C-alpha cells in the first residue's frame, strides 16, 4: 500500500523493541467479542490509476457550472478565481499544517489570519473579525447566540428576507440552546415587518442584504429601531463580492456582520467547504465565538502573531465557552485572503461593478421575456415570477442547455412561492449566456 511506509521487517523489529509477540497483542484491551478477524465487506486497495478513473467516472456524471449558461446563486456564487490562489493554497506548508498552536513555527498561517481579520473588518465596516467560521449559515447561528450573551435576552427575530437555510440552521442550533427564534414570513421587502416586531425582549434582529430575493436594503432604520429597544442588529450577506459596491453593514449600524465568504477565492464545491466571515464592534470582542489571532512580540522584541483571548474557547473554558467550535475554515480563509489581496481595493470595486452590470443586462433580458421582476434594487441576483412552477421551468430550460437559476421552493417548499425563480449573474456570465437564457425561458414559459 503506497501510503504505508513500514516494511514487514520494520514491523518485526519494532514488535521486538516493544516486546509484543504480534500486532494483535497491542489490541488486547479490545473485548474479544468486538475484534473483527475478517476483512470488512468492502473493496480491496486500489492503485492511483484505478482510483482516479473511478472518481473521474463519478465526476463525469455531473454537469459542471462552467459547461454552459448558468444562473444559480441563492447563497453560492460562481466567480473566476485566479490560478495563483489555488497554487498557493496547495503549498505543503499551508495545506498540511494544523491550527497554529505553536506560534513560533506557524507564523505563516498566523500572519495570514491577521490579514484575513483585517480584510473582513474593512469589508464589513466593523472593528474586529475572527479567524473564520465553518460557513455563513453557522456564523449566523453563532451571531444570534452571541447576541443572547451580550443582551441576556432570549428572543431573536429573523427577517423574511433571510436565506431559508440560514434561518433553519439558526433555528436548529440557537433554539437548542434555549432561545426563542421568531422566523418571519418570507417577504421580498421585509423591512417594515422587522421593525414592527422588535420589542424590549428582543436580543437581536437578523437581516440579510442583499437578501435571498436579491433585494439590497439600507438597514439603517432597522438598526435605529433595534438600538432603541436595546437589541443588536446582525447583518447577513451571502454574496461577499457585494461589499465592493454597497454600503457596509458597519456603516448602516450593524453590531455584528456575518457572511458567506465563498465568493472570494473559493470554488462552488457542491456546497462546501466554504468560509464564514464574522465581524463585530470592538466592545463585543470578548463574547465572540471562534479563534482570534492577535499581534504581540517575541522574546527578542520582534513582532509576531498568536491565537489570543482563548479564555473564551472550549479548550480552556470547556462548558462555559462562547462556542464549541475548534477546527474552522483555515485553508478557505487563506484562499479568500490571497484572492482579495490580488483584487485589492481597486479590483474588488471593479469586480463588484462588473457583477452589477452583468445583472442589469440579465434584468433587461428577463423583462424582455415578459417576466415580472420582483427585485426592485439588486446587486447581482434577481427574483422573478414565472408562469406556473419555477422548478418545472428550470427543468424545461435545462433541456435547452441552460441552468436557469434556483426555484425558491427548493429552499423553502412551505412558503407558497412556487412561482418564484432566483437568478444570479456574475463576471463569468457572458452576453451570449444571457441571450441563451432569454431564449430558453421564452420557450419554457410558452409551453
Amino acid at each position, binding site marked *: 500500500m503506497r501510503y504505508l511506509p513500514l516494511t514487514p521487517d520494520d514491523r518485526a523489529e519494532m514488535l521486538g523493541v516493544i516486546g509484543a509477540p504480534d500486532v494483535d497483542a497491542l489490541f488486547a484491551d479490545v473485548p474479544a467479542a468486538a475484534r473483527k478477524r475478517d476483512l470488512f465487506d468492502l473493496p480491496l486497495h486500489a492503485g492511483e490509476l484505478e482510483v482516479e478513473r473511478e472518481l473521474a467516472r463519478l465526476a463525469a456524471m455531473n454537469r459542471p457550472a462552467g459547461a454552459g449558461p448558468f444562473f444559480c446563486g441563492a447563497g*453560492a456564487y460562481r466567480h473566476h478565481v485566479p490560478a495563483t490562489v489555488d497554487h498557493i493554497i496547495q503549498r505543503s506548508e499551508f495545506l498540511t499544517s*494544523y491550527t497554529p498552536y505553536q506560534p513560533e*513555527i506557524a507564523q505563516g498561517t498566523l500572519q495570514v489570519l491577521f490579514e484575513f481579520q483585517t480584510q473582513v473588518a474593512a469589508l464589513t465596516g466593523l472593528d474586529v473579525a475572527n479567524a473564520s467560521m465553518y460557513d455563513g449559515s453557522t456564523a449566523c447561528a453563532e451571531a444570534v447566540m452571541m447576541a443572547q450573551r451580550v443582551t441576556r435576552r432570549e428572543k431573536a427575530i429573523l427577517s423574511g428576507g433571510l436565506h431559508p437555510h440560514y434561518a433553519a440552521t439558526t433555528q436548529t442550533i440557537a433554539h*437548542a440552546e434555549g432561545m426563542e427564534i421568531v422566523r418571519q414570513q418570507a417577504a421580498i421587502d421585509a423591512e417594515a415587518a422587522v421593525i414592527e416586531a422588535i420589542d424590549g425582549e428582543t436580543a437581536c434582529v437578523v437581516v440579510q442584504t442583499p437578501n435571498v430575493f436579491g433585494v439590497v436594503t439600507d438597514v439603517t432604520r432597522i438598526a435605529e429601531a433595534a438600538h432603541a429597544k436595546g437589541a443588536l442588529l446582525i447583518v447577513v450577506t451571502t454574496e461577499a463580492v457585494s461589499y465592493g459596491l454597497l454600503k457596509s453593514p458597519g456603516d448602516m449600524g450593524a453590531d455584528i456582520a456575518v457572511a458567506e465568504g465563498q465568493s472570494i477565492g473559493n470554488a462552488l464545491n*457542491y456546497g462546501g467547504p466554504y468560509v464564514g466571515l464574522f465581524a463585530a464592534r470592538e466592545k463585543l470582542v470578548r463574547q465572540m465565538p471562534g479563534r482570534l489571532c492577535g499581534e504581540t512580540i517575541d522574546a527578542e522584541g520582534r513582532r509576531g502573531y498568536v491565537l489570543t483571548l482563548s479564555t473564551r474557547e472550549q479548550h480552556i473554558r470547556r462548558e462555559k465557552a462562547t462556542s464549541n467550535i475548534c477546527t474552522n475554515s483555515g485553508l478557505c480563509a487563506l484562499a479568500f485572503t490571497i484572492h482579495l489581496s490580488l483584487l485589492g481595493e*481597486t479590483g474588488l470595486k471593479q469586480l463588484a461593478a462588473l457583477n452589477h452590470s452583468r445583472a442589469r443586462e440579465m434584468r433587461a433580458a428577463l423583462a424582455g421575456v415578459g417576466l415580472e421582476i420582483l427585485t426592485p434594487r439588486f446587486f447581482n441576483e434577481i427574483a422573478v415570477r414565472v408562469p406556473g412552477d419555477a422548478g418545472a421551468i428550470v427543468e424545461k430550460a435545462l433541456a435547452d442547455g441552460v441552468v436557469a437559476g434556483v426555484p425558491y421552493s427548493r429552499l423553502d417548499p412551505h412558503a407558497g412561492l412556487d412561482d418564484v425563480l432566483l437568478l444570479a449573474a456574475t463576471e463569468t456570465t457572458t452576453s451570449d449566456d444571457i441571450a441563451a437564457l432569454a431564449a430558453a425561458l421564452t420557450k419554457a414559459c410558452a409551453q
Partner: protein
Amino acid sequence: MSMSNVGRPTRPEGAVASTAHQSLSGGRGLLQDEPLLFELGGWDKTGVDLPLPEHDASDLGDLVRAGPIGLAGLSEPEAVRHYVRLSQKNHAIDLALYPLGSCTMKHNPRLNEKAARMAGFADLHPLQPQSTTQGALALMDRLAHWLKTLTGMPAVALSPKAGAHGELCGLLCIKAAHEAAGQGHRRRVLVPTSAHGTNPATAAFVGYSVTEIAQTADGRVDLSDLESKLGPDVAAIMVTNPNTCGLFERDILEISRLTHAAGAYFYCDGANFNAIVGRVRPGDLGVDAMHINLHKTFSTPHGGGGPGAGPVVLSEALAPFAPAPWVVSDAHGLRLVEEAVDEAAQAFGRMSAFHGQMGMFVRAYAYMLSHGSDGLRQVAEDAVLNANYVKARLSAEMSPAFPEGPCMHEALFDDAWLEDTGVTTLDFAKAMIDEGFHPMTMYFPLVVHGAMLIEPTETEPKAELDRFCEALLALARAAKAGDVDRFKGAPYLAPLRRLDETLAARKPKLTWKPEPAASEAA
C-alpha cells in the same frame, strides 16, 4: 486537538539572543522578514485585469458605498512572493513528523487534491438541478456506505462540518429522541475528566448540564463512579474511545450496557477512530452516535485549521432524527432530500446551509478507495504499532503516564521525569522545535500532570520515528544533565522566539490599523 493553557506560562522568560550573528536587513538567510500585506503600500494596486462594466450602478442611488474600503492590493508577482515567503514560516506534515496527539496528522495524498478539483466536483453548485449532479450524489451515497460499514452503524448524517459540529449533531439527535419518547426532562450529560474541551462545550450548547466521571488509576472510566452518576435525568454519556490517554476503554461493553440500562444514549467521540478503523466497529461496542473527523482518520488536509468534516454515524434508535439533507434512491435515480417533511417528520432540523463538505467527501472517498478494506486495517495496525514503538523507546528517559500494557495510536507521558530539572513540559516542547519537530499536544488531557501526548500516525517510516526518538532522548538527557538554557530560551532556531501571549490578550490587537507616522509597532 487543542493545546490547553492550564499550568503553563504564557509569557516568555528572560531571553538570550538567539545567534551572535545578525543580518543588516532583518532577514535570516532564506527566511525573509515579511511585512503585512497592508504595509506593502499597494493601495491602488491590483493583481487582476477586469473589463470595464457596460452599465453603471446609478440605479442603486445612495445604497452605494461612498468612502474607501481600506483594502490593500498586490500585483501577481508580489502576491506570490508575499504568500510564499509567509508559507516558509510554517511547520507542516510534509516537512517532518507532526505528533500532535488526537489530531492524527498523517500524510495527505495529492491524488485526493486532484480529484477534489475535477470540474465535475469543484465547479458544481449545491442548488443546480439534481439530474445534473447524479455523480455527486452517488459519491455521497458511496461514502455513506463505507462509513456505515466501517462503523457497523445503520445510518449516517453527512452534513456536519467538523468534529465539534458533529458532536452537536449527535447530541441534537439524542435530545430529539428523548423528547419524542417523553423523556425531555433528561438534561444532564456525563463526560469523563479526560474529555476534549469540545465535549462539555457542545453539551452546554444544547442546554445540557455537564457532570464529570472520574478516571481510574489506569486511565479508564471509573465504572462505579459512572454507575453512581447515571440516573433518570441523564440524557447521554460522551466517551472518547480510544480515550484521550491513548487507551482503549476495556470496559466499553459494560459502559454501554449501564448507560442503556439507565435510559441514556452513548455518544462516542470518534476523534481517535484511526486506531481501530478496519478492526473494530463502534456499532459492536453499543455506541449510539459517533462523529468521524474525515480530516483525521480519512486524511483530508488540516489546512492550517480546517476545513474539516464531521459526519455522524447513528444507531437504529437515533436514525429517524437525523438532520436534512440525505440521499435516497428512487425510480429517477438518486435524490437529495433537502427538507424533512413527510418522509421523516422527526428529523431535528438543519446543521448548515446546503449538503456538507463535499470537497472533503471527495478526498475521503479517494482515500478509502486507495486503501480498501485491507489497507484501512493496516492503517490501524501500523498507527498502533508506531505509537507503541515510540512509547517503548522514549520510556528509556521519559515516564509514560500509563506504563502497564499497550497504548493505542498515541503515547502519553507525564512530567514526573522532569522533576527537579527546572524544565517544564512547555520548555521541553519548545526545545523540540529547535530539533526540527513540531511539539506534541501539551498539558492535555488535563488528568495527567504536564501531559505530553504523542501521535505519530501510520504514515511515518521507521527511520523518521527513530530520528524523532533519538532527538527526544537526547533532549531528555540534556534536561537531566542541567542544560537548562537549552530549554528555557527555546526555540532559538525558529522564525521567531517564544511569543508573549499575555501581552496579546491584555491589549488585543486583532487588525492592522494605519499607525500615526513614525510610531513603529512595538
